[in-house]
């Protein structure tokens, strides 16, 4: 049975798709059979970030409507044979997602994969509800600013009340926090919330802090999950996230400002 992971946030633009692609690629690179699903029906993006937009034939909605089977719709990643992408439909809307249909697809994926990563749309409407309903684990992507934190808090309340695990009184969804677009210098100056500020409100298990990085945009535009860019701090942060998710205990990086020595200041970038 696969573990179903939802990447969610409430707020838009915080890095859900970036995280979904990085986490899925990271898990697959470590030998786990992984599927990543785009739940943002009508505004599909995951295929672009994964660099497979020109290979989409069938999509998630086709599978839900039994117009195609899963093996036809799943796109195998060219960089990692353990990774498969199920793109969203760009021509339909979120009402195509029916709970029973999504349940059927999840069950089928569960049989063939170790992990199923669900990339949730923003908001708390139907699409987001469908993405999180069958989840075993939830990664809450949050930016260090108050509106994002509050939306995450709201999403946590929904996870605790409206998921399948909540409705069947099973073990609750495991909730993790991923803090993205973190800028230690701005935190130090006091114009960005710190990890502690965010944790005071959300108090979740911290899966990782991903620093604000130009490399993320570059990677997205190139259709390469950022985790493959091992030089960038964001890529390294996502590698840590994957390891921590799989149970490794690692100290958190990228929280402090880098103290530059004299030589570094003279010859550094």
């Amino acid at each position, binding site marked *: 049975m696969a573990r179903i992971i939802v990447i969610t946030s409430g707020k838009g633009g915080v890095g859900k798709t970036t995280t979904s692609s990085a986490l899925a690629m990271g898990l697959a690179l470590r030998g786990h059979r992984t599927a990543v699903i785009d739940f943002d029906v009508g505004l599909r993006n995951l295929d672009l970030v994964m660099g497979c937009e020109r290979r989409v034939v069938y999509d998630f909605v086709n599978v839900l409507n039994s117009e195609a089977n899963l093996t036809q719709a799943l796109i195998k990643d060219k960089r990692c044979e353990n990774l498969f992408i199920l793109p969203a439909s760009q021509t339909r809307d979120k009402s195509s997602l029916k709970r029973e249909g999504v349940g059927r697809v999840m069950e089928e994926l569960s049989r063939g994969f170790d992990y199923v990563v669900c990339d949730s749309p923003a908001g708390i409407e139907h699409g987001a509800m469908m993405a999180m309903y069958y989840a075993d684990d939830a990664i809450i992507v949050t930016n260090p600013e108050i509106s994002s934190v*509050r939306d995450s*808090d*709201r999403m*946590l*309340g929904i996870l*605790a*009340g*409206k998921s399948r695990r909540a409705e069947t009184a099973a073990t609750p969804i495991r909730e993790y926090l991923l803090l993205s677009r973190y800028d230690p210098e701005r935190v130090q100056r006091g114009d960005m919330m710190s990890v502690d500020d965010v944790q005071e409100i959300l*108090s979740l298990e911290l899966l990782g802090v991903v620093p604000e990085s130009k490399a993320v945009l570059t990677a997205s535009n190139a259709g390469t999950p950022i985790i493959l860019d091992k030089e960038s701090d964001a890529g390294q942060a996502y590698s840590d996230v994957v390891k921590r998710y799989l149970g490794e205990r690692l100290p958190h990086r990228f929280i402090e400002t880098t103290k530059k020595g004299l030589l570094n200041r003279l010859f550094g970038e």
Partner: protein
Amino acid sequence: MDIAAPHSQFELKAGTFTLPLLRLLDTNMDAMAEQLSDTVEQAENFFHNTPVVIDLNDISGITVEFPMLVGLIRGHGMIPVGVRGGTTAQHEAAEMMGLAILADNRQSSRTISRHKSDSKSGSRSNSQSDAQSNVVPIKPEALTTTLVNKPIRSGQRIYAQGGDLVILGQVSSGAELMADGHIHVYAPLRGRALAGVKGNENARIFCRDLQAELISIAGHYRTSENIDTRLRDQPVQIYLEDHILRIEIF
């Protein structure tokens, strides 16, 4: 939010209304008729089709000629809907005339008007109705204390019907706690807490760390900007004393 739900024909919801109260001071129907005419004459439009509640508190136990009274009120264009106060005998007579017996709760009338003015500011009327369906009713058999050991997240509402509410986790801003009795929060309270929502003026709120957006006891409320900053982040108890909300550091 339930996807498979069929289209329902109606929703059952609670609403609060402020109604004019006709407080009877005597039972002389002739004098009543005269005074009523004079009053209505001054503002006919105001009384036209207005539902009114008859207050019997000052004439408790005295026989009222309800058929006459109802006729008089209707004759002036108003709609008598119920009575408040009075004795069982009076209630029986009122029921004969199709009047409802309303709970004699002076507090509740104050609560209503407060809530009214609150929602008029527009800030919460919307979320109120929207969130109404999210209220988690505590099972009716659990009529004493409700204990919650999880954090209460933004947008969640917990209502302890008929008893006290004890919360062990933090209460996020945007969350709402309600109890007919006391509310205890053993973690930061950042959301709203409304104790004694059915009018119990003896209800209290206890919290370890006061950062609340709004606190209310039996309808007497205070928003965070009206809470003394020296009381913020402090362990406090909140109670009513002579209809005034008191916040006291432990």
